């Protein structure tokens, strides 16, 4: 499904990641790795935010570099520490993402209601706590009809109730739309909530499949 071809990401002369030729099948993946192993870098390059050499494509057909728009319609991303323009309200940010990602009308309602974001939605994000901001960034990552959702440290700052809801979102989205997830986290994902999740270890500047 997701194909890496001659992928290399460097910071100056330092080679951070190299993946020669690899296809990752559809599924839910937990990306593990020590600090500085390149988890955020991997997700940001997959999201089309950071430059890299080589290419990443979906089914070897939709290339990040050659079909930039089509690729970005199918790949969504949530940052580890989301930063948004402080003057925008949660609702306005949802509108920006919904318009950009071509989301069906009212798609956000389910996510907003289940995460109990409704009372805060008309407030500027400058008033949000870090947990609220995280919840909002996760809602934004589900907007549109993504085939792949990349989540960088989604578990941090979420309380237990929010974590349970979040796991339900992933399971639902994967079951209903076969959406793949790449989730970087230092914490283990709940095996009961996501029993099919596989593990990828980032080590020695490349990917290693554990299970």
């Amino acid at each position, binding site marked *: 499904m997701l194909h890496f071809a001659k992928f290399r990401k460097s*910071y*100056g002369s330092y080679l*951070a990641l190299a993946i020669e030729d690899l296809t990752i099948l559809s599924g839910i993946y937990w990306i593990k790795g020590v600090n500085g192993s390149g988890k*955020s*870098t991997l997700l*940001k390059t997959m*999201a*089309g*935010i*950071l*430059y890299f050499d080589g290419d990443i494509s979906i089914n070897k057909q939709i290339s990040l*570099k050659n079909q*930039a*728009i*089509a*690729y*970005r*319609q199918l*790949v*969504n*991303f949530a*940052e580890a520490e*989301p*930063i*948004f*323009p*402080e*003057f*925008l*309200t949660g609702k*306005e940010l949802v*509108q*920006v*993402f919904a*318009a*950009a*990602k*071509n989301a069906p009308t009212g798609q956000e309602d389910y996510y907003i209601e289940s995460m109990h974001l409704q009372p805060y939605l*008309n407030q*500027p994000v*400058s*008033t949000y706590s870090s947990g609220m901001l995280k919840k909002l960034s996760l809602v*934004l990552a589900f907007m549109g009809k993504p085939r792949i959702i990349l989540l960088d440290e989604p578990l941090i700052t979420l309380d237990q109730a929010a974590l349970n809801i979040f796991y339900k979102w992933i399971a639902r989205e994967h079951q209903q739309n076969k959406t793949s997830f790449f989730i970087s986290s230092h914490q283990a994902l709940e095996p009961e909530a996501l029993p099919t999740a596989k593990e990828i270890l980032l080590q020695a500047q490349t990917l290693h499949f554990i299970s």
Partner: protein
Amino acid sequence: MLSPLSRTLIKIFAKGFYRVHAGLLLALFIIIFIYFLFINVLEQTRITPEERLMYNLSLVLAFITNPVVMAVVFILWLIYTVKSWQYVAGQLRLADQQFIFYSSTAMPQVHQFKSWFLVQAIILLPIISYGLFSLAIGIMFDYFVMPVIILLYILLLTVVSALVYIKWLNKLRETENQSYLLKIAARWRKPFFSLFIYHVFAKLKLAYGLTKILSGIAIAGLLHFFSDVKQDIRVAGIIVLTVITAHTILIYQEHRFKEIYMGFSRNLPYRRRKLLADYIFLFILLLLPESIWLLVHYKVLPATGLFLFGLSTALLFCSLLYWLGLNMRKYLRWVGGLFLLFLLLIMFGCLWFLVFLNLGVAFLLFYRNYYAYNPAVDT
């Protein structure tokens, strides 16, 4: 021996201040230096070298003898000081500087005062140097009262600044009140291209105001300077070029806004031509006052051409940042170089050619670099 707090604060605030304002301060310094040392007074053949030195020092002498000149200089120094407050306040709002609130405030306020006093003294170094220079001149020419007032005024500025910083740091923070315009616009739909305009009203009101003042001064000053040939299209071209160059900081801030607050936007499936069209809309809005002036001052056709020249130059300055990244020094060097080059090309009658050249280069730079975001380290 500097305390660890002083060292840290100097590194963050004083050095940071000079990093951001280096270009402007250097330009001012060069102007003053040239004025004092190299300006030729009229009919200099009739005057002795000593008299020439006196003429050249007349501004300093006026400063220490004439209360009106001194008042004007004092107001300028006050503006400089307020500008430094604005810089420090802006830095204190950044996430990286939040540790200062829960570390330095545990110290006795006297210690905090000493550190901030030092920081402000370094920020005011250009003013202090000028003050000391006037003091030396005052002593040479037997004027003592005014130089003492000058030194006391500088001391006052430094002390008040340090106290202001301490007050900001030690008071319990309230939630920031939203800008009035943002409250009005709360119900408006905010299209992607317009977000920077709202950011201007939320965070950059002063920068916007100063840019427009600078732009107005450029228009009035250049029209006055070229009053005998003001209908010459080349003069209009130079004015528009200067006006766009005055917007450099706003253009830089736009890019900074995109990189810092809108980091997610490269993941949004927007075509590059749409993003470029967004920039055109944005500049049309930002340059609205100048466009009105163009329409009032020139006939429709030249006014449109001049506006297109301004727009293409703004687009070029904006696209440059996608190539250079958020490197202010490099960026200002490029803008300065292009300003001089365009000035020459306009003088040689290449104004309309520049419209196409700028648009073409802007498009190429943007198209090639938009997805090539490659910072030295992952932010």
